[in-house]
């Protein structure tokens, strides 16, 4: 049995991270994703990125892996025509340019619908396809800033915090959900359609409860690692340099269990900590007591003890710890992929397990630029060798 999305083909015009992560997820679920780029405008990971200290192309690009690559020069009318032929053979077209760019290229929704009536077109942008800010340029930290997530992240006495690529990828995963909804509707009604995902609204949707509180007259604010109900709750120093334990004590039973673990059972009956309200009021004293205990133990050791006692906890893991974790590997959340030279490296899998069908996840690494043109231009579109050579000479396939 095939992967669940086998048979769905996506013409992928997305760039940067948010849109490509969407199609990357769908490709791991079985969709055939044709990544459209060109030598003049290659994927960002084919270029140096000195801000990150990378002086050359990346050997592995998570969000491009599992995709097919073709070159098309969209600046030429013949390139646009070629792109439309791919769209005509696809179920979905995805893009993440600023609003209006696809129209100017001649690849807007109406143009694509003219070649494939039931096409589902997904547009991912910073602020949505319409509205006074729709022309704004943006990256992940700006989405978080516009959407309130950045403002509500931070120490209570500090500034807001920049939300990095997790923001981009959250937008991408949201976009994948919306796209699947549109495909279901197409299956139901036969109608394609336009899906418009606004990245800043994705950020806002993650703090929708706080926006509702503000709408009712409340004043939500940054609260660090604190919780509105639970205490102790937060991140506590563990044994060793820069080692930390994430801990949350949910209710009186767990508080008593923690007090026992800490070897100070009398805390369980201390009136300052008698119930959640009292513990919240005396949070600073409580945090100091927990830290006295936690800093004497390895974070993984204390987390295991806490979990055995029925208390939610985990070491604050670094990336190497995550990459090596048996639990994550057993779930396929961390997988091994092969570099072009055959060397294996850790990558992130699709975050779910299905009980039926072929194994989902990454089957192949980052494609070389234009690696799959024999299949796409030859088998799929039926272009002959001469026609392809002519298009290459005209720098349409370029």
């Amino acid at each position: 049995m095939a992967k669940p999305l086998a048979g769905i083909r996506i013409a992928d015009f997305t760039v940067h991270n948010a849109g490509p992560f969407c199609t990357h997820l769908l490709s791991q679920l079985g969709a055939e994703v044709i990544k459209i780029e060109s030598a003049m405008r290659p994927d960002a990971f084919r270029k140096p990125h000195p801000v990150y200290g990378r002086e050359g192309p990346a050997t592995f690009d998570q969000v491009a892996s599992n995709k097919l690559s073709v070159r098309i020069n969209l600046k030429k009318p013949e390139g646009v025509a070629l792109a439309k032929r791919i769209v005509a053979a696809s179920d979905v077209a995805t893009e993440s340019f600023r609003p209006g760019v696809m129209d100017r290229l001649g690849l807007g929704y109406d143009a694509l619908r003219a070649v494939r009536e039931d096409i589902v077109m997904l547009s991912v942008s910073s602020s949505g396809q319409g509205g006074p800010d729709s022309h704004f340029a943006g990256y992940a930290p700006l989405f978080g800033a516009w959407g309130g997530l950045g403002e509500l992240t931070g120490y209570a006495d500090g500034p807001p915090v920049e939300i990095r690529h997790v923001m981009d990828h959250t937008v991408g995963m949201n976009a994948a959900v919306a796209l699947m909804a549109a495909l279901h509707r197409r299956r139901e009604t036969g109608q394609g359609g336009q899906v418009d995902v606004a990245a800043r609204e994705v950020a806002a949707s993650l703090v929708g409860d706080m926006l509702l509180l503000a709408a009712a007259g409340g004043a939500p604010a940054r609260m660090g690692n604190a919780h509105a109900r639970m205490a102790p709750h937060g991140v506590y120093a563990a044994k060793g340099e820069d080692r930390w334990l994430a801990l949350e004590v949910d209710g009186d039973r767990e508080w008593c269990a923690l007090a026992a673990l800490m070897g100070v059972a009398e805390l369980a009956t201390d009136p300052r900590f008698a119930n959640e309200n009292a513990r919240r009021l005396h949070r600073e004293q409580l945090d100091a007591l927990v830290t006295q205990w936690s800093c004497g133990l390895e974070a993984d050791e204390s987390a295991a003890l806490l979990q055995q006692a029925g208390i939610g906890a985990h070491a604050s893991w670094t990336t190497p710890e995550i990459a090596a974790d048996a639990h994550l590997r057993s779930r396929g959340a961390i997988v091994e992929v092969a570099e072009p030279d055959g060397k294996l490296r850790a990558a992130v899998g699709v975050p779910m397990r299905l009980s039926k069908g072929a194994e989902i996840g990454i089957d192949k690494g980052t494609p070389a630029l234009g690696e799959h043109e024999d299949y796409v231009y030859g088998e799929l579109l039926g272009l002959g060798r001469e026609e392809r050579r002519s298009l290459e000479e005209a720098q349409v396939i370029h």
Partner: protein
Amino acid sequence: MSGAVTEDRRGPLAAFRIVAIANGVAAAYAARMLGAMGAKVLLIEPVGGSPLRREPPFLPSEHGAKASEQSALFAYLAAGMDSEVIDLSSAPGPETLALRLAGADIFIDDTPVPERAAFGTDEAAVAALFPGLVHVSVLSFGAYGPKADWKGEDVVIQHAGGEGNLLPNGLAVEMFPDRAPLKIGGHFGAMQGGIAAALGALAALWARPDAGGQAVDVSSQDAMLAVGAFAIQRLGDGSIEHRVERSFRYGGVIPCADGYLELLTLEQRQWDGLVELLGRPEWALDPALGGNIERSRRGPEINRHIREWALVRRVDDIVSAGQKLGVPLARYKTPAEILGGGQEAHRGLFQRVEVEGPGSLGVLVSPFHFEGRALALRAGPPVLAHCSAPLAVGS
């Protein structure tokens, strides 16, 4: 804001029905996302109601600052759902649930695995009784694997998934380098589990004509890790990220006279625009700063200049002028600013719904538009045991 739900705004999933046992954020968020896109959602609550109803902060009441009994979190997550109270711990609870599942396409469940058999909701029992049902399990560490029995909500998920250790960055870590790492605000980690569960549900539903129903196992830890994938990618490149060094070398969070803005210039033309915005000061015209590598090396020096310049200016003035020059800039908007924002109003991001206690409030609907139109919620959060219409068979 409009409360009316017309036929053409019901959303693309209007044909589907969902039953959710959602005592935590992740499962509830999955159901919320699908419900906002038109699916009809029945929330199964225990006697006394979902624990989410008891999560503070509570919304201020309609006529004053006094808090109502309405949880902001529950009101947001459950908006548009129906509610039914079923005591699954005794008869006829499991039988009643089975009747509801018989009429559903998707079942979302965050009951801990060891408790499921007694409810009749373990994977094997559901598969046997409801062969066409998509059964989505959403747990913090998943239903399978060495840590499947571990528990944890947002702060635990974020640190088990890696991003927790990598925050804060930029200005916050400059100011407080010795403090504990910081989680992203709200319920970010748990919601990742919800988003992944929504995707898994729709993917499995897509395969249903060929494969029949099936089980989908989602872990919020996995989902948190997935959105933080670049840290693993960088590890493979030979680089271990740390929150202190992870900041962009210049730009980032910039304090202004009336708030904060975010500045990020990754491309040369954006840097050129920034220099224009700053008024072409002498320091910025240094030819050595023409290249990205040197700018990254001298990031702290550049930021000192930018911060000095910005501190006496208003955020909106800078953002407006900068965006015209193609410089990526954004205000760190407060919730009140988002609620009153012109862009949000234009997009119909908020819809007025009735919330018992506080009254009529604008609630965020969805970040998705279909065919150029905002979606619409069916209603506000349900009163306990309020069901607008029976899901299917039995009642």
